[in-house]
């Protein structure tokens, strides 16, 4: 129904604008209806402006900026319609150390209400984990769980 879509759109947009600023340390991101007059059928545009930069077509953003913008939006959708748990598979692969720090702090904050399973190669991301499961293939082609010590 129109009511439900508009409510969801506005709520997710609020979460997105908030999360974008937290992950970027500033700037602004939001969703915009392509056709404001026709919310029942309009497509959705995403605009993103990292701190100090000008508003541009999101395709001009860097690889890391795109990832971070997408993460902000996905976490906003998740906050509006939460599941019992959230699995993130290497979503941090394009992020530099500064952005990974803010990303992992955001996950830490959201973990008060949600269980997270995070697959990562990054040591900073690993540090927010309460438990670390290592997977190896000592015997080629056969996966095995091992306990992991973080140095």
């Amino acid at each position, binding site marked *: 129904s129109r009511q*439900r879509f508009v409510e969801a759109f506005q709520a997710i947009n609020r979460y997105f604008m908030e999360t974008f600023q937290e992950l970027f340390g500033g700037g602004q991101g939001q969703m915009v209806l392509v056709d404001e007059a026709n919310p029942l059928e309009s497509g959705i545009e995403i605009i993103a402006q990292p701190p100090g930069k000008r508003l541009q077509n999101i395709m001009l953003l860097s690889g890391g900026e795109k990832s971070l913008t997408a993460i902000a939006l996905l976490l906003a959708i*998740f906050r509006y319609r939460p*599941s019992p748990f959230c699995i993130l598979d290497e979503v941090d692969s394009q992020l530099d150390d500064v952005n990974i720090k803010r990303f992992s702090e955001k996950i830490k904050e959201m973990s008060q209400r949600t*269980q997270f399973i995070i697959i990562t190669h990054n040591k900073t991301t690993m540090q*927010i984990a309460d438990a670390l499961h290592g997977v190896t293939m000592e015997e080629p082609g056969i*996966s095995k769980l091992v306990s992991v010590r973080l140095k």
Partner: protein
Amino acid sequence: LKLEKLELRGFKSFCEHTELDFTETITAIVGPNGCGKSNLADSITWVLGEQSARLLRGSKMEDVIFQGTHHRPPIGVAEVTLTLVARQDFSTNNGHRGGEQADGAIGEPTSGFELTVAAGERLTVGRRLYRSGESEYLLNGRRVRLRDIQDLFAGTGLGPGHYAIIGQGHVEEILTAKPYERRSVIEDAA
């Protein structure tokens, strides 16, 4: 609902029975390239009722069954079991779906399938696929239909269009999607 444990055997590269505890709030899964981390995520996607082999990186569903290595023969069945704990009283029947995600929707009645889990009680969801193509779906040890598993999770935010599992390489999809494709993402959440 809260995740407690994942068990898998014969699923992709997890030839032997493997058990993972998820009792912690934030669990990290680490290891070298190709060791099986994404396969673990796939096993959860699969036991929740995923029907698209392509979303599991396969060309047919049989691809999820351990296919053998140079030293080990293929296995005949893939099996995954997820154990969850109810955080509040939880029941699924005829549109009464999950005290936790009460979005007010009255779903169409399932054919008499009924399950009630009290707060603190466990719920186990199992799925098996045999190389013959035969499938089994289990809830608390009882044989059910795939539909019952999908319905159960639909009431908890893990239904179609959920964003609970962000797959490797998929995070930027929402940005490169067309405007009306993004709309349907928001519609699914609404």
